């Protein structure tokens, strides 16, 4: 291929411009992933300098491990609780706030406040609120004659409690995303809909709002799914996976294996599995949002 000096200089410049970003991606993402993959093929532990190549043994253990199956079940169950709430409640709030004229910004700030707080600190506040003995929530329930709930001590309840806390912390963020999406819908589409007879709120929602929100909704769904699978800090602070592994979710299991039991090789295998799940979600988002580019 014949290239002029100008073209060659431009090519060189182009490579130099992408170099810093490429280096960062390489150092922060690519190399660690390769190292984790390499570690997952060994029996490396933090307590011993000696390790051996074990092939796919860690993965075989993983799929046979009851703890892994339990963590996967817990994570999916938690996601099923968390996702509809994170999506529907924020969408309903966004639409309600969007139609407010007077207090819109005040409400926006109020709902967004939890996002700005540190979840690990707020988890302690929630622990106090949800305390089975002296918690405000149980006290309130009991004044209405409803028996109190053992929020963190009951294995059948603990995932609901964690989902409630996560919803509280994430709804404001999703709501702001939906608000941005709603604001971007051209007003004249609603006017055209009104002329066409679609002035019933249900029609307005299904004919204009929902289809026009498509890309935003996809983004919120995917980021919320990833958030659901990344559940860790409230578990680590409030339940440590208890009671009896009832709140042992996937990331917490990986953490336990790595930093409590020091099984780095096995923990690496768990991490790569987790990476695979996240990758699927990211792929879904990339595929579906591209189709909607023409909006």
């Amino acid at each position, binding site marked *: 291929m014949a290239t002029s000096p100008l073209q060659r200089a431009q090519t060189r410049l182009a490579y130099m411009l992408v170099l810093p970003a490429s280096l960062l991606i390489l150092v922060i993402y690519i190399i660690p992933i390769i190292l984790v993959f390499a570690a997952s093929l060994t029996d490396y532990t933090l307590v011993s300098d000696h390790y051996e190549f074990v092939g796919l043994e860690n993965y075989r253990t993983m799929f046979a491990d009851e703890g892994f199956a339990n963590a996967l079940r817990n994570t999916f169950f938690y996601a099923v609780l968390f996702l509809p709430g994170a999506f529907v409640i924020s969408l309903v709030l966004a639409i309600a706030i969007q139609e407010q004229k007077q207090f819109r910004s005040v409400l926006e700030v109020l709902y967004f406040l939890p996002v700005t707080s540190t979840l690990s600190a707020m988890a302690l506040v929630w622990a106090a609120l949800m305390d089975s003995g002296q918690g405000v929530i149980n006290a309130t329930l009991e004044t209405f004659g409803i028996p109190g709930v053992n929020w963190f001590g009951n294995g059948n309840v603990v995932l609901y409690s964690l989902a409630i806390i996560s919803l509280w912390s994430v709804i404001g963020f999703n709501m702001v995303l939906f608000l941005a999406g709603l604001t971007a819908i051209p007003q004249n589409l609603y006017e055209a809909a*009104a*002329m066409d007879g679609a002035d*019933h709120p249900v029609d307005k929602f299904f004919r204009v709002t929902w*289809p026009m929100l498509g890309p935003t909704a996809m983004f919120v769904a995917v980021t919320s799914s990833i958030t659901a699978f990344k559940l860790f800090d409230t578990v680590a602070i409030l339940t440590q996976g208890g009671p009896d592994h009832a709140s042992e979710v996937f990331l917490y299991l990986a953490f336990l294996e790595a930093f409590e039991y020091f099984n780095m090789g096995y923990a690496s295998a768990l991490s790569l599995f987790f990476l695979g799940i996240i990758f699927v979600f990211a792929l879904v988002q990339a595929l579906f949002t591209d189709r909607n580019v023409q909006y």
Partner: protein
Amino acid sequence: MAQLELKNIKKSFGETPVLHDISLDVAHGEFVSLVGQSGCGKSTLLRIIAGLETPDSGDILIDGASVTNSAPKDRNIAMVFQDYALYPHMSVGENMAMPLMMARLPLHARLPGMRSITPAGRRAQPEIRAEVAKVAAQLHIDHLLDRRPAQLSGGQRQRVALGRALVRNPQVFLMDEPLSNLDAKLRVQVRAEITELHASSGLTFVYVTHDQVEAMTMSDRVALMQSGHLLQVGAPNTLYSDPAILDVARFIGSPEINIAAGERVAGRVRLGDVTLPITVDGQGPVQIGIRPETISLPGVAGLATAHPGQGPSLPLNKRMVEDLGPEVLIHGHFAHAPDAPVRIRAQKSDSYGTDDALMRAESLTVTLNPQQLLFFDAHGQRLTAKALETVGAT
């Protein structure tokens, strides 16, 4: 077909009044343009007719029945929006079917996915499809029914917007600057198509535009608006040749009408050193409106004379000449008034070349036709003028 009446419509946005007491009658099948500069209130008035805005006071009647408090869909009015407002997620066919679906399907059948499941939906579907196809064929967009708006050209989108409005068989057709997003060539073509559509459908049209050429060429009557007031309503030619006030004369006509300062002396009007054979009542200064094509240049070869006979002559200092092919635009000013620009539009008589003498000349002598002059007082109100001792005067 329907008769539309607006009675004493007033509207303010907060403290800002946008419409002051507008009354307007539109007859059955009439094409009325609301024309004016941006911000004059013409779009607000259209939106009030559509029901997208409510007037602070006043009444809107269609065929004698008040619709002031009716929802847009209950007025049997269709509207084409400036940027068409097509639903980007629907195909052309679905866009056009929307008004019919909303009118004919019960709410439960309109929910997503219910159209083909519910009996009501299944019953209405073929009928709706047939009607959409009919209107699409009429507008020559039947081959586009499966496309999305994003895949269409500007002109095609325009037709889809027209189709969506037509398919519901409205009584009144509203258009908000429908040509402003089209390129110049397409604009002329669509202009003609809309005029034809009006003629063939016999519907009552209300058309908003800031372009006086559109208003003049398409309408039966033009309603000229300025700062929330209706200045004058009349046939295009009436607004052009018989404007009630100076602002109307200024807005209608391209190039803009020339305004020369004159003086009433002993019942006659003086322009510079010339006394015009015109009497105008009252005393003091007058503003003389001179249409660019009514000025003749008898001394210049190759230009057609705009009017026969003699008229008062004035010296003009030429600044430049624009050659448009069949005609020329001459820019300059009367010798006695260097601050008031004068534009002259003159047809070429036979040759398509430009006269060298005209190009070189620095000063020209121009002749005015006293009968075609328009006189306004200092406030812009039209003055009645009477021509004296001129050939053919009545």
